[in-house]
């Protein structure tokens, strides 16, 4: 079997959040809004809990990009979730640079529980950007 990454389609690891962005991603499927099969989601409770080491590990192992589908302003846990997740992204990008990985391979966006269209357009756009990084 060929690996999804070997056919030139960038593989994206998405960290979603159980209560907010994961239902949004579910809705994209329910509405049959197509996106690439090279997009794979790992749901977490909240985007403030993503560890920079996970992202560096994923990118070193073979994912071409990582996307944090953050709770945004809808977070049920933290009113400053976006600020915290943003700070994590900055820290992660610094760590990525240390490992010789372009910081452009990490993206974050708040994604609400009904943001199905948004998710699909983020994935399409990010894949394009990752392609141009590799060309």
């Amino acid at each position, binding site marked *: *079997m*060929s*690996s*999804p*990454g*070997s056919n030139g389609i960038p*593989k994206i*690891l998405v960290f979603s959040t159980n*209560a*907010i962005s*994961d*239902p949004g*991603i*579910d*809705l*994209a*499927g*329910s*509405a*049959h*809004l*197509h*996106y*690439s*099969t*090279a997009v*794979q*989601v*790992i*749901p*977490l*409770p*909240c985007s*403030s*809990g*993503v*560890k*920079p*080491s*996970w992202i560096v*590990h*994923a990118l070193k*192992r*073979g*994912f071409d990009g990582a996307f944090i589908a953050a709770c945004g302003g*809808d*977070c*049920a*846990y*933290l*009113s400053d979730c976006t600020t*915290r997740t943003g700070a*994590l992204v900055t*820290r992660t990008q610094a760590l990525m640079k240390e490992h010789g990985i372009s910081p452009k391979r990490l993206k974050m966006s708040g994604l*609400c*529980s*009904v943001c199905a269209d948004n998710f699909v357009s983020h994935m399409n756009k990010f894949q394009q950007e990752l392609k141009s990084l590799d060309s």
Partner: protein
Amino acid sequence: MAHKRRIGVYICHCGGNISDHVNVKEVAEALLDEPGVEISRTHMFNCSDASQQEMVDEIKEENLDGLVIASCSPKLHLFTFRAMAERAGLNPYQYVHVNLREQCSWAHTGDKVGATEKGINLTRAGVAKCALTHPLTAIRIETQPRVLVVGAGVAGMRAAISLAGMGLSVFIVERGNEPGGWASQAGRMGPDDRYGPEVVANLLAQIRNHENIILYTSAELTAKSGHIGDFTATVRLRGEEDVSLNVGAIVVTTGFTPYEPEDGEYGWGKPGVVTLKDFRQMLEAGDGPLTYNGIPVRDVGFIYCVGSRQTKGDTCPEPNTYCSRFCCMATAFSASLLHEFEKESGQTINQYHLYRDVRTYGHLEAVYTNARADGALFLRWDPKEPPRVEQSNGRLAIKVKDTLLGDEELELGVDLVVLATGMTARKNDTLNNVLKIPESKDGFYNEIHIKLRPVETAIDGVFIAGTAQGPKNLAESVASALAAVVKTGGLLKKGYVNLEPLIAEIDTDKCVWCNECLKACPYGAIERVLCGDKEVAMVIDSSCKGEGACVPVCPQDAIDIEGFRDNQIMAMIDASLKELVAA
């Protein structure tokens, strides 16, 4: 690892929803090679009683210590399979759910090879996570015996009365100046000829007499915090004063907005073209003959399905594709009321009912039968050639092809055209921002599952009922309100709810008490304790929400969230890339 795991993997066809787009057999076979997998097979429906029983038997017989279910979104059946695991004697937290439908088959229809590959990767990640699970016990918290009902229409009022009858305290928040909703303006309602304002007055009297119910009008829910069983709701009264309410659950019954026809749609805007509601008000206005602009009405044409069952087109870019459910009955019931008016007034009025399909289902059929017996003439039109309304000789003319008369084009001279307008989703940005209940494409609030969890939402402790959820007639609205009552009562009368034990855990060997986790925690769920001769952080289980904000800030990498432990996420990443790494 201490011992080899014995994991069962069950891939669901979902009756074709998954297997039409993912080769589930290939997924099941691929998973047999994963370490720790003892069984890997498919079922037509993992959630069916028969499949569950098979899995329970197999878990017991094969002494499985891990379970991976690859089927629909975990929002749907996580609790189904947790309960199943418990029945099989397996700790429910050693079961891992893989989303093979919403996040695989449905998103990748038309790419079976790609979707199958992805399905294998997703399921491998699930197995990798499962292999690192250990038994956990739920945390129990007390629930508050109070409920907030949003919207004081018939559904909301009925729900409030029943909840109060269970011994719960109820706050009703109504945005308008008056309670009652649409029923208070409905006049006589079919099928049983109840008078709307009287129905509302009866409910209101019960509410006013009930010591457990407080009704706020001109009030809006503006903020919500907390969690299932213990919410704090902020309600703004008359736009100026805030009250804070501590409730265990929220029931949303905010109703619908009637469809407003587009200019020119079935003659809308022309004199004599009215909605069913307008017509009924004219009919019930009282004495003397039925007139329009001073001229006695001799002929009335009713057009059904206005704003419902639409198809996308140039004039209708965002169609309401659904049936509004109440309009056929309400319009056919109006036929009998008009007939009754004829008998009482002596005024002869011909009535023509132009319909697509008569959906007076179930017992409502009698309403349609009565309408025909009362002299209403039913003509069926084809949606490809809808009726046209024109002005002609100072009256209105409806041109319609009657499909039951071999598509003969008829021209009906009428004095009134009555449009049976449907229901649309109510716009309420403030509420949507506060509650964040997922909406369907049509804008109505979405239940978790139309059949299995019809009044629960993705937000735990928040229930929906009535037409806020989708078009319903009044009986159906009340039925769903009472369903929400039962779910709410079941939650709050028990007095406690089990919360996920998926919370933070600190590795005291690594911890050196630097204070970073305490600073990151908004819940005060961290305390400093002495462990042997060193100070370390400890998690207060009942306060920890498990969101994980403390995890990435720990300089010692000493914190994990149960269910999302560092080694589990790393293993999931590796498992997702297995083909790539092996290649």
